[in-house]
């Protein structure tokens, strides 16, 4: 009888021991923004289980994190949102000396405006905003935002359904800063967009890829990664950044304040900075990496592709979005007036 109880106790202890807290990482990321194989590899290597949830926009992420009762450790917001989160004390400081691979990041991606001392973020992916056009239908030279206002492309133009990007394009066309807080400049941008509206087939989001590939329009505004995929699926489509300049954006890792698994978050970031890992990720996602060495591991086609791997020295003037704060209401009003115009 005693032997039986001893065995039972042993089994119970074993089960209790197995029920111990596994190492986890609670990761909040954009949808479809990491190669799942990369996560699998990380999990196998470190034994840390990655629980990933997805968000659609920076603003959604912000709401969930600030009001939500959520418990994420790591997230990948964009530049202007990071600026806002730093201001509001939502982020933990990151000691970059603890990373093995931090030096692999190109200096171009350090000391950026939104995190000048690299205390709170580590770059993950970046991209630009530009113009895609179908070379079969467009015989003009495409090098300026002006082409989006040409009568001959009436009903053959797609604009982004993102308020900020679209207003930014108009501002750039007029020679102003994309972060302009000058009400007069914003009004001019609004007028320009209202003038343009009859020429626009639609203001669309992710369906733009499929639509352009299916040749539903001749010209569109889109992001570099989208341009890359479009070009890959339909070689008639080319992506350029206009000479007036455009937007460059960065999605970076941040560790959230009071994160319970800070160490695991650090390990994950370091893992993603490994050139082979970054390469694998970039091949899957189609956006650009901040780790130049990763290009040694990617497909020749991608390595030489100037859309997703542009020469950093040859880019026109690119601006990073800043936290709009109260100006966001102006954007909203402007967008409303544009969409109310006939």
């Amino acid at each position, binding site marked *: 009888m005693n032997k039986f109880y001893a065995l039972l106790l042993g089994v119970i202890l074993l089960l209790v021991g197995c029920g111990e807290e596994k190492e986890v990482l609670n990761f909040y990321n954009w949808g479809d923004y990491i190669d799942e194989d990369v996560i699998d590899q990380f999990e196998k290597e470190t034994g840390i289980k990655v629980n990933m949830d997805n968000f659609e926009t920076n603003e*959604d992420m912000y709401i969930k994190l600030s009001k939500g009762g959520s418990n994420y450790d790591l997230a990948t917001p964009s530049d202007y949102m990071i600026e806002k989160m730093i201001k509001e004390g939502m982020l933990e400081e990151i000691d970059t000396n603890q990373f093995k691979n931090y030096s692999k990041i190109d200096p171009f991606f350090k000391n950026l405006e939104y995190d000048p001392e690299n205390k709170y973020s580590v770059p993950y992916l970046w991209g630009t905003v530009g113009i895609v056009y179908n070379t079969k239908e467009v015989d003009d030279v495409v090098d300026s935002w002006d082409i989006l206002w040409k009568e001959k492309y009436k*009903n053959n133009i797609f604009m982004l359904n993102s308020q900020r990007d679209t207003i930014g394009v108009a501002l750039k066309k007029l020679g102003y800063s994309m972060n302009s807080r000058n009400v007069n400049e914003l009004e001019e941008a609004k007028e320009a967009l209202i003038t343009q509206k009859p020429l*626009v*087939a639609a203001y669309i989001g992710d369906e733009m890829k499929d639509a352009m590939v299916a*040749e539903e329009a001749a010209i569109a505004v889109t992001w570099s990664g989208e341009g890359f995929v479009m070009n890959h699926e339909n070689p008639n489509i080319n992506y350029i950044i206009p000479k007036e300049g455009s937007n460059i954006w960065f999605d970076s890792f941040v560790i959230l304040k009071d994160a319970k698994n800070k160490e695991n978050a650090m390990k994950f970031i370091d893992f993603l900075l490994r050139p082979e890992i970054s390469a694998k990720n970039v091949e899957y996602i189609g956006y650009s990496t901040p780790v130049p060495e990763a290009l040694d591991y990617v497909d020749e086609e991608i390595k030489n592709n100037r859309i997703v791997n542009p020469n950093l020295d040859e880019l026109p003037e690119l601006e990073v979005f800043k936290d709009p704060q109260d100006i*966001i209401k102006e954007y*909203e009003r402007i967008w*409303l007036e544009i969409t109310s115009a006939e």
Partner: protein
Amino acid sequence: MRKNTFARAYLIWLMIFVAIPLLLIAFYAFTVTETGQVSFSFDNFRRFLNPIYLKVLVRSIELALKSTILCLLLGYPLAYIIARESENRKRIMLLLIVIPMWMNFLLRTYAWSTLLGKNGLINIILGKFGLGPYQLLYTDGAVLLGMVYNFLPFMVLPIYSVLTKMSPRLFEAASDLGATKLETFKRVTFPMSIPGILSGVSMVFIPAMSTFVISNILGGNKYNLIGNVIEQQFRWTGDWHFGSSMSIILMVFILITMAFTNKFGGDMSERGGLF
């Protein structure tokens, strides 16, 4: 009695999960935050009285109205036909109508995009007959089509559920008394189905008022609807005060509309019953 308990229990549920959240929204609607200070204000409501917002509201009402009417015109005959089928076929047909709704809404709407594009399937087929290509996508028609597509089952189901248990003896009696099929429909079937119609109308008109994803994808996002504007306040601009006040305005508008509709429908159904 037992039924009073049901009502009481539901009241408590509603208090917690509907009334209190509503009060929270009302709190946002009637306050403004200036430099961190929260204070009572009507500003959020005043802001709405701008012609630009009113225009948006009117446009939304138009779209919702058109969608509802189309759903009713298309849905009633369908509900009628299904209700007169045999028991087995009824069940199957109902499920057939509903199952497409279990496929993700965004995907279905995207699929319409593919069908309606300049180089989409419909234009390809029309092309074989030498027609087109027509601009089908990014038009008001496309939006209406998308709306009807999305809301039709919500009109059919309630009407069906009222029509289905109509005793065949009712129709026998009516024809014995010399009524033609049309008269039977006008004087018996239709009035009796009015509660179902009203349910169907609410289940289409109300969500149609605040739907905007269809207008975004199939309409090219060229016009804002009240649903966009409200959602943007919460999810983008961050102005929960204004968003809440607009929701309350929308809610009051809808409640008043539904009150009228129900009264009107109630009268009609009563009149029908008298003959």
